[in-house]
């Protein structure tokens, strides 16, 4: 039942998007976010949409999956749209009833806000769809490594992140198992009032915490017995190397961002 949760929703593949270096993908995502916020004109939005469609098509991620990730924030999108339609003050009033007024500007603004949200969600989830969590933390570590000079524990934070990510599926599986076991003893997680329901989760949470601590302890022992002592002088199994395609992708994205900015300046 908990298996349907997609988190760190990596979708393995071998497309161009999949193969781009994770560090570049992170930068590209940042550029993409900037691009979305720069866009103001229909042509600008069109350009971004075309880019996004290209990325999605290339990655071979089923569009159904992407629509599913949008569905979870559907309420948020609708809320934004409704709020902007009714509460943006505009000059060309199209419709008015009591305190509700709908103006042309309001509709335009609502549409652009909705587009922005959709672009941001789809664009950033393309990063997590096509990059494995481990590569992603490696990339974050690499990009933030200059902070090491300021004694910022970049490696340790990245390690903590990858361990946390690694254990999400394990803990979900564990939760599922403990739930089944307690249900087999007649535990009821579904009925009763709020107080009873919260109380019914105790038989689930205590074993879950106990096992999380046990796993943490075992992992610490395993790491220590292999002489793990942090990032200093540590070499890597996966060495990140940039290829020509990474620079090309970066150049293309930069050009696209410039295009969006130009479109905005000229108001096209």
């Amino acid at each position, binding site marked *: 039942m908990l*298996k*349907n949760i997609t988190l760190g929703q990596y979708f393995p593949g071998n497309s161009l998007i999949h193969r781009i270096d994770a560090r570049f993908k992170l930068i590209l995502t940042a550029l993409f976010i900037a691009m979305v916020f720069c866009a103001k004109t229909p042509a600008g939005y069109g350009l971004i949409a075309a880019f996004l469609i290209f990325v999605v098509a290339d990655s071979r991620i*089923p569009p159904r999956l992407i629509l599913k990730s949008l569905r979870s924030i559907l309420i948020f999108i609708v809320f934004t749209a409704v709020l902007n339609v009714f509460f943006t003050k505009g000059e060309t009033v199209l419709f008015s009833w009591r305190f509700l007024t709908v103006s042309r500007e309001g509709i335009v603004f609502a549409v652009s806000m909705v587009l922005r949200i959709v672009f941001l969600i789809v664009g950033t989830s393309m990063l997590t769809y096509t990059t494995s969590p481990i590569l992603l933390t490696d990339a974050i570590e690499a990009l933030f490594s200059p902070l090491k000079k300021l004694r910022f524990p970049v490696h340790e934070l990245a390690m903590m992140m990858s361990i946390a990510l690694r254990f999400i599926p394990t803990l979900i599986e564990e939760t599922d*198992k*403990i739930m*089944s*076991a*307690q*249900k*087999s*003893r*007649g*535990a*009821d997680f579904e009925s009763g009032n709020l107080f009873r329901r919260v109380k019914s989760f*105790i*038989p689930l949470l*205590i*074993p879950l915490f*106990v*096992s999380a601590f046990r796993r943490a302890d075992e992992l610490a022992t395993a790491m220590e017995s292999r002489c793990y002592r942090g990032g200093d002088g540590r070499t890597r199994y996966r060495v990140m190397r940039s290829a020509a395609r990474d620079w090309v992708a970066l150049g293309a994205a930069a050009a696209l961002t410039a295009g969006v900015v130009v479109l905005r300046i000229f108001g096209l």
Partner: protein
Amino acid sequence: MEILRAEHITHIYSPKTPFEQKALDDVSFSVSPGELVGVIGHTGSGKSTLISHFNGLLRPTSGKVFVEGEDIWAQPKQIRRFRFRVGLVFQFPEYQLFEETVEKDIAFGPKNMGLSAEETAERVREAARSVGLDESLLEKSPFELSGGQKRRVAIAGVIAMRPRLLVLDEPAAGLDPRGRDEIFDTVRAYLASGENAAVVVSHSMDDVARTASRIVVLDRGRVALEGSPAEVFSHRDVIESTGLRLPFVTRVMHRLRDRGFAADVSVRDLDEAADALLRLKGGGGRA
């Protein structure tokens, strides 16, 4: 009457997604009072999926499950009452303990049944005795106990519900030989009255060979073999093709037979094997 009957169960995980997987494919299964059925199969053969249907944790994609003649999915809202009639003990059940004391933990099931305090207390004591837990342990925290003791507490927690059918998933995993024998002794004692039945899931043939009255071999979601241990173990080729190994003594006997001795391949444990070999030696007969 059969305690449990599962008819043509098919179970598909995440249907209509790219992750669709048929875990069970038209499996029929029944257990009568007094039986100890061993379910064996390789990892991923559908053993755990199958037993999760017995008390309604999973609903079959198609097929029906009857407990003492009642279709358990006739009223889905009432499914909880079947959990008390078919007691499921999962793999590594010691990880599900949560109460402050052993006594309270064993009482979790009976309390969920809505039994009175006296009835609960009596069942707890009886269940603890039946798994060989000393009364002095009842007041302790379950987290202070040893691994084997914890497992017995968890099994007692299910036995205290007095299910007609006791289902154990890999009850001996990770225990030393003595701990393993104790668990199987508990199961046999549970069956002594003749009214109850048990299903033991394992991937180890040796465990079930000695105790089970009937064996079901699962392979990729289907029943590959079914019958008495002697019948099942005579199909060496089928068993080995499912990635399992025959019990150690059976393998020895098969090996002898391959070499031309008239060895009895239906022996169930070391003692029987020794007797059979002595007979063979006494008769002196090469086949």
